[in-house]
């Protein structure tokens, strides 16, 4: 683990369709290989199913699908990032997750204007690590947004049909 510098937080960097995203280490429970996924009927399209992680059954979200990229075959580098937020434990499937980085809080800038409004809600901001542009994700918001878009929330759920 990276020792926290003053005013900096530790992040796990993951890649998704050639873009680097950062997830706060404190939100992450563990990194796993993606195991067997069991599809859940009628779940939102970006949910790949449920999977068993150390004795718990948790939902697995394809972050590619969530962010509008095409799904790709899983490889040896594909990772399940198990995050915890507000009592929920959810797995995020990413192309890879190989690096830790300490990002100073003041190096994170607000999301650029003109980005699709939905995504700015779970984007805490952007940061530069050397030449690389990094999107810093807010896990709590990501899961919250995911949840509300999961249930399309018409006032009346179609009656169990």
């Amino acid at each position, binding site marked *: 683990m990276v020792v926290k510098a003053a005013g900096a937080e530790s992040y796990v960097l993951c890649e998704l369709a050639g873009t680097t995203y950062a997830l706060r280490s404190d939100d992450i429970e563990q990194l796993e290989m993606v195991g*067997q996924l069991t599809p*859940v009927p009628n779940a939102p399209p970006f949910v790949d199913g449920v999977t068993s992680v150390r004795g718990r*059954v948790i939902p697995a979200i394809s972050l590619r699908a969530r962010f509008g990229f095409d799904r790709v075959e899983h490889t040896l580098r594909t990772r399940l990032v198990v995050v915890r937020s507000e009592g929920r434990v959810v797995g995020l499937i990413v192309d890879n997750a190989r690096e830790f980085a300490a990002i100073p809080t003041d190096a994170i800038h607000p999301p650029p204007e003109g980005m699709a409004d939905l995504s700015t809600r779970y984007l805490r901001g952007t940061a530069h690590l050397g030449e690389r542009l990094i999107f810093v994700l807010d896990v709590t918001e990501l899961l919250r947004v995911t949840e509300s878009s999961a249930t399309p929330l018409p006032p009346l759920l179609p009656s169990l049909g």
Partner: protein
Amino acid sequence: MQDGGEFFDEFIDDYFSECEEHLATVRRVLLALDVANDGPADAVLLQDLLRALHTLKGLSGMVGLSAAEEIAHAMEDGLRALPDSRRISRTLLDALFSGVALLESCVNARRMRAEPPSPGPFVDRMYDIIRSLGAMNGPANSETVSIQPAVTVRLFQFAASAELVARGVGVEIIRQRLATLGDITATTPVVQANGTVVFEFAVAVRAGVRPPAEWRDDAVTWHDWDADEESTPPVGLVVHTGRPRAAPGAIPSTTSSNVVRVDLARLDDLMRLVGELVVSRARLNDVVGRARTQLTTSVQDDLSDANAAIERQLRSLREGVMRVRLVAVNEVFERLRFAMRDVARETQKSIHLNFFGQDTEIDKLVIDRMLEPLLHLVRNAASHGIESRDRRLDAGKSPDGTVTLRARAAGDRIVIEVEDDGAGIDIARVARRAADAGLISSWETLTPDMLLDVLCSSGFSTRDSADLTSGRGVGMAVVRDTIRAIGGTLFVDSTLGRGTRFTIELPLTLMITDALVLEVGNQSMAIPQISLREIVPLDDAQVTRVENNEVLSYRGRVIPLVDLAARFHLPPANGKRHALIVGVEPHEAGLVVDRILGLREIVVHPVTDPLVAMPGISGATELADGRVSLVLDAATLIRSSRDRGTRPTPAALNAAQTPTSAMSQRISEQLWS
């Protein structure tokens, strides 16, 4: 906050759980006194109350929670100031009620590490009342006890032996003898160092009653109390020669002391371990099966025996661990009684609260989470369901309303019902309002599930339809969410003018269960065996299409089929299908599946995350190959078949009446054996 490190933290948890117990006693007694407020208060109850308050005071002092200490002390003084008639005035009773509420908030504040409320105003009020009673000179003078109890708790010991049994003197006989002295409040078997068992009886002996000396010949011992009768304070008196008790001042009354408090988290760990063991054994079982051909017969037999023994023992182990977690729902029901009293007072209604099945046992964790939703439902029933006295009389009902709570076990679920005999929900009116609010189309009629959806949609309220469901909006949404989060389901039934019933189905516990593993659209799923009645191979001749649905002729009846592949948007099966008959007539259905894979013991993991908590699925399980399978929820699936209007018409019924009971082959028996 003051903090004494880990030791103190551990101790404080004990403090909270003990407080809970004693607060429950205080609440119970106050309610009983409230009901019987005209006559003199029952002396036994008063003793219980004083004892509980005294213990609360002592415990709070030990953890330095002086606010709670002062409140309990003032309440105690208030009780001791009672006149000889033991008649409790309404003012005093109300003060005691607010006292216990204040005590509770003090304890909760401590739990949240917040500042406790100030006891000052309450204490002042209490001593004002005491002064007006004129029975006391000063608040601290608690030695001048003015209650002369009609009973005193005494301890008796009985050493059972084979010789006594031969003479016909057993525990039961002794119990009957002791009961002639007064109520037996506790019985505790104590294993002695030499291996014999001694039974300790706590008996609330009526004043003036003495046990006959010849009882001593039958190995019954007690401390003679004639000598110290006068000098011993009557309250909290027990002649106790045995082991030291956990809490100073605590006296064995209705709770026996051989109870160990265990942190739920430790039990969870244990349960998880048992779950892992079950999965490991399933793997072992597979290996044993594969290795069979390469072994000699005798080794095979030994292996099978050992394997079967492990299975049996595992089963007992998991049942044992599960039982430890179970508590009677009464624990929560009693607290509702307390809330009900408040509502009845606020609304000036007279309401009876009835309990049925309060001994039903349920997982501690599940029932703890149910307190808030139940509170809400009971409050709602009392304030919005039950009509005013005048209205009830106009409607030809008894002037007093009734709210009934029922608990019962139903297979692998626990069902709790909250029912009122009030005005009921005007479904047509709710539908109109829902249509006005754009929640439904104006031509739609509300099925019970849709009604619940409307009631639970946040912000929806039939406020201007006055007494019916006003204010139910946001609260009901929370109720349903809470129930869902622990894997439960909420249903509503209402008849206009007759009342409303909310039904909550809850999982009994974190479950390990026997389940049938099956295949639907190439996906394996499981269904708890307990929900299954029969497996019927589907024959096209038995299946009739009614509008958009299929029904099955089954044992002379017609039951709706739920095509799971269609229901779950999975590819349809090719080849012979099976129907799993679930539910009880008339609420039954046939779940159509592709293949039956066999019976397994599974560990059910809750699937409660909103992303994947779908109706019809109650959880997931890990099969021996490490793959996760979904566990079907028969109850919801049956309801879905009903609510889609599959109830067949009489014409369809006749068309489908073919002699089938002979054709439906009972293969379940083969599977179970």
